Each structure stands twice: as C-alpha cells, then as structure tokens.
C-alpha cells in the first residue's frame, strides 16, 4: 500500500494506476465466487448440447451468468429466439438499476469508456465497486480493472468447465456453490452503515424470500431494489430534517 502510493506519483499515468491496482487487488475476493459458476456454466453448456465455440461465444457476447443458464436451457427445450430474448431482457433488467447507481460516480467519463464499463457490469463487480465508490475508495479505473478481470475469468472458466469440468470432486463443487451467496452476504454486512440501511436490508431480505416462496421468479431483484430503496428514502425523510 505504502509503496504503491510513492511509486505512482512518478508514473505519468499516476491518476490511473492507483485505481487499477486497487481494483485488481480487491477483485481477487470475487474470483472465488465467479470461478465455480463459470465452470458450472461450461459443464451445463456441454450437457445441453452446445458446441465449445457456441458456449464461449455466449460468454464473450452475453456475459450474464443467470441469463446464460436460462438461455441454454430454453434453447435445449426448443424455445424461439424472441422468447429467449424477452426472458433474458427481464432477467437482466436488474443491471439497469445497478448501472444507474454506478453512473452517479462516473460523471464526466468519456462515452467510449462508459460503453465498456456498462458492457462488463455484473452483480459482482457492481457490488464490490459500489461499496468502494460510496466510501470514496474507487474510481472509474477501479471499476474497469474489476470488470476486465471478471470478464476474462468468466470466459476462461467457461472454456475450462466445458473441457474438464467433470473432473472436479462433487464435494468441492457443492461447497463452491456457497461462494456467491458468501460474496453478497459480506457485501450486505458492509453496506449496513447506519440504522436506515439495516432496516432496508431486513425489509429487502424478507421481501425477496417472500417473493421466492410465492414462486415469483422473474424481476425479483429489481422489484426488491425499488421497494427497498424507496423504503430507505421514506424512513430517512420521516426521521429527520
């Protein structure tokens, strides 16, 4: 940390490097969550009869975990292009609210860079960087580093899972399935910075479980996000000033 701060002053790209380095370092903690899902997707793509180039192309272009799983299942079940596209749209609508939240920290960013940042936005990099943006520790380069690493990892693990996924012991791959919930649970704890965010967290958790129990399986995240954030603002309004 100390050495980074002293060396970056010397570099001409001194304002870019610290963000890239911090972002790359923090992203290590997300890899445990992304690697098993990428491998699982590679395995599933093969089981559902996709060719290796098809599986890789899907990860390169679509780059959306849940949607890709749903997509290959729907394709295998003989769904039409339009049907798959509409489902994907609704499953991924949650990213709209995530990039909207990120955008308030990306003012003045060139359009080309924004287009790249938006393309590679995932639940994981959103979660990591929004937590750091809120505490002033992230910038656009931080987000770029996190995004590029997760993008590369997702594509590499898709291929690895396709080629050699079955070699993984079941116990390990089952336990690895806990990595993603662990990432979001930790981020949730860190996001609870005051009483109102705790209220938002408890309410949102209860609502999302209720939605799942009620077999509402589409648009849950965006529904919970809107309800939770609105509750937070209402409580804030009601509590003070």
């Amino acid at each position: 940390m100390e050495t980074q701060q002293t060396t970056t002053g010397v570099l001409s790209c001194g304002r870019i490097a610290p963000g890239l380095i911090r972002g790359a370092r923090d992203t290590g903690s997300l890899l445990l969550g992304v690697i098993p899902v990428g491998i699982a997707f590679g395995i599933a793509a093969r089981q559902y009869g996709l060719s290796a180039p098809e599986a890789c192309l899907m990860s390169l272009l679509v780059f959306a975990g849940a949607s890709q799983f749903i997509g290959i299942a729907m394709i295998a079940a003989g769904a039409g292009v339009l049907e798959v596209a509409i489902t994907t749209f609704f499953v991924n609508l949650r990213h709209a609210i995530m990039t909207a939240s990120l955008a308030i920290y990306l003012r003045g960013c060139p359009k080309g860079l924004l287009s790249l940042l938006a393309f590679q936005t995932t639940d994981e990099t959103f979660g990591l960087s929004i937590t750091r943006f809120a505490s002033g520790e992230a910038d656009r380069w931080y987000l770029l580093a996190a995004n590029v690493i997760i993008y590369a990892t997702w594509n590499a693990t898709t291929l690895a899972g396709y080629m050699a996924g079955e070699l993984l012991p079941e116990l390990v791959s089952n336990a690895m399935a806990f990595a993603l919930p662990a990432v979001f649970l930790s981020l949730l704890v860190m996001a609870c910075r005051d009483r109102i965010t705790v209220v938002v967290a408890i309410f949102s958790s209860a609502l999302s479980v209720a939605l799942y129990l009620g077999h509402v399986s589409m648009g849950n995240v965006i529904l919970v996000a809107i309800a939770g954030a609105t509750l937070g603002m209402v409580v804030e309004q009601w509590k003070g000033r």
Partner: protein
Amino acid sequence: MMLATYPVRLAPMLAISARNLPEPVVRWLRYVPPAVFSALVFPGLLLRDGNPAVSPSNPFLWAGLATFVAAMATRNLSKSVCVGIVVALAGQRVLG
C-alpha cells in the same frame, strides 16, 4: 441475447452520468445496494429448489452464519468469503 443484455446495462449509465440528478434521486440510488444484496443472497441461503430449508441440516445456513459473523468482525470481503466456504465444505462433510 446480447441485444437483450447490453442496452439494459448501457442506457442508464449513459443517461445518468451525463447530467446532475435531483438530490432525492441520488439519495434513493444510494439505498439500492443493500436492497440488491439482500435480494441476491437470501434465496440461495434459505431455499433449496424453491422450498424453505430453514433447518440445522442445511449446511449453507451454518456457512451463512459464519460468513455473517466474519464479515461483522473483519469487514473484509476475501476473509469472510473464505470463512464461509471452509464452513460450507466442513458442513457438507458432516451433514451430508
């Protein structure tokens, strides 16, 4: 599929980063993260195949508890995720 995923990510980012939002909207957006994290974590923890699995035989419940405690104590993402995975691994061994 890409035509369904990319515009959804791109449009809000371009639209919002280009202008100054009214203060209430910015405050609203700041409450989005805890809500989104809640929505992403709890179904995977408390449900198995859409059915509630709130019982001591669900290893992910114990792993979730350990992750929660570790995150509170360390406020460090990598440490708490590692603790969670280790407990999930041990839990699966013990609980089957």
